[in-house]
């Protein structure tokens, strides 16, 4: 098995576990932890791809909410407090990537004249 095959095997296993989580969560879990989902069924299939991708996070949040461990203050801590860091780091990264990319660009060596360095050996086949 090469690395590519291993990565795809991992992705398949990840997705399969996610599918199991999705099945249980969307049938019996969701309405116990979110009253807005009680009686709402049409939107549930829409959540399946998300659960496939981030099922460990889903299990974690499910556990926190079902266990009543959700701390209300954690809901009101906007990311914007850390946004300055991103807002300045991203432009730097973009410029860095652009400069690196442009620095690698090559020009077709149209002027290079093929050079014969040594004549053919006398022995021919």
């Amino acid at each position: 098995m090469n690395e590519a095959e291993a990565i795809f095997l991992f992705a398949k296993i990840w997705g399969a576990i996610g599918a199991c989580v999705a099945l249980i969560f969307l049938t019996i879990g969701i309405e116990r932890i979110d009253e807005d989902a009680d009686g709402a069924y049409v939107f549930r299939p829409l959540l399946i791809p998300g659960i496939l991708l981030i099922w460990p996070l889903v299990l974690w949040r499910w556990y926190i909410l079902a266990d009543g461990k959700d701390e209300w203050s954690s809901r009101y801590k906007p990311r914007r407090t850390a946004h300055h860091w991103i807002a300045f780091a991203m432009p730097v990264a973009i410029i860095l990537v652009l400069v690196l990319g442009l620095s690698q660009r090559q020009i077709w060596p149209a002027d290079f004249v093929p050079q014969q360095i040594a004549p053919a050996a006398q022995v021919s086949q």
Partner: protein
Amino acid sequence: MSVKYTPVQWNRNKWLYDGVMLIGVVLFLYVFLFVSPEILSHEFPINPQVHNARAFGAAAFVMLTVILCIGPLARIDRRFLPLLYNRRHFGVMTTFVAITHAGFIIDWYFAFSSSNKFEALLFANTSYTQLAGFPFEVFGVFSLLTLLLLAVTSHDFWMKFLTPPVWKRLHSFIYLAYISLVAHVSFGILQDQQNHTVTVIFIGGALCVAGLHAYAAWLDLRKGDKPGTEKDGWIEVCKTSDIENGFAKIRVLPGGDRVAVFNQDGKLSAISNACAHQNGPLGEGKIIDCLVTCPWHGFQYNVTNGRSPAPFTEMVPTYNLRLSGDSIEVQTQANPPGTYVEPVPLPDAKPQEVMA
């Protein structure tokens, strides 16, 4: 909002928004796919699969560039806020366009061999240790996976389930995805392109995103919400005359949380600045029909108890406040969401305003 979840929420403005964006994208694809081959008129034309892949790839880049410009634009000039309102729909649209791009590439450059085409995507070029000739496809894969992750977690359910801060952090991966997209283009098509029109458009777009973010952040550092100084668990917010009726003053609390002190008809109330929906800045909103209205998506709260009007069930924390001379002070410790706090009348409020 806290009524039963539906698959997609639409209203008149959202239809308009989606309509305008869709027209833009469809026009982009139409002229790229059907008009440009006529203009190019190459004797041996570019393969349709490559042409299609480029059309969808270029569209995804322009779309993501526009999306990322909306945030800082709305912070620089509030008139752009309506563009923020339905940005998620445009993001999902971008994901579909990006998937189409990837589909054409994989079905062309990585198909027709004895190997699995998805595996081939990872092993065909293994020059991971060099810059030139680096397998730039992996940058695209990263961006696409991120877009997918954001699209599939874009439903409001996820926001409530994961909590707005976690959801927002997850969705701030979009910045990494954009950097990765810039790398995908820089180490891909940009290396080969001889006509530099695309190079200029691409660099211009990327620099727009970079520049707007830096400028908006710099503005925020200069003019943004100021921290208050704490004294015995209370901080001074502003003078009693500073808050216009129907609006708020925002202060950053010692722990980094923000409080918004509203003046509703001469009475003061303090609530968390973070909306329960997406943690939008409530203090930058205004009171409409006796309800604080978030400037991002219009979620509303009663300013005295931080509760959304029925049938909605969202709540935000409230804060105790008091007057000290002509200063308004707020207790730094928040009350649990939905706690009623008796409004504090402004001393110089005209009686009729209080009556109102």
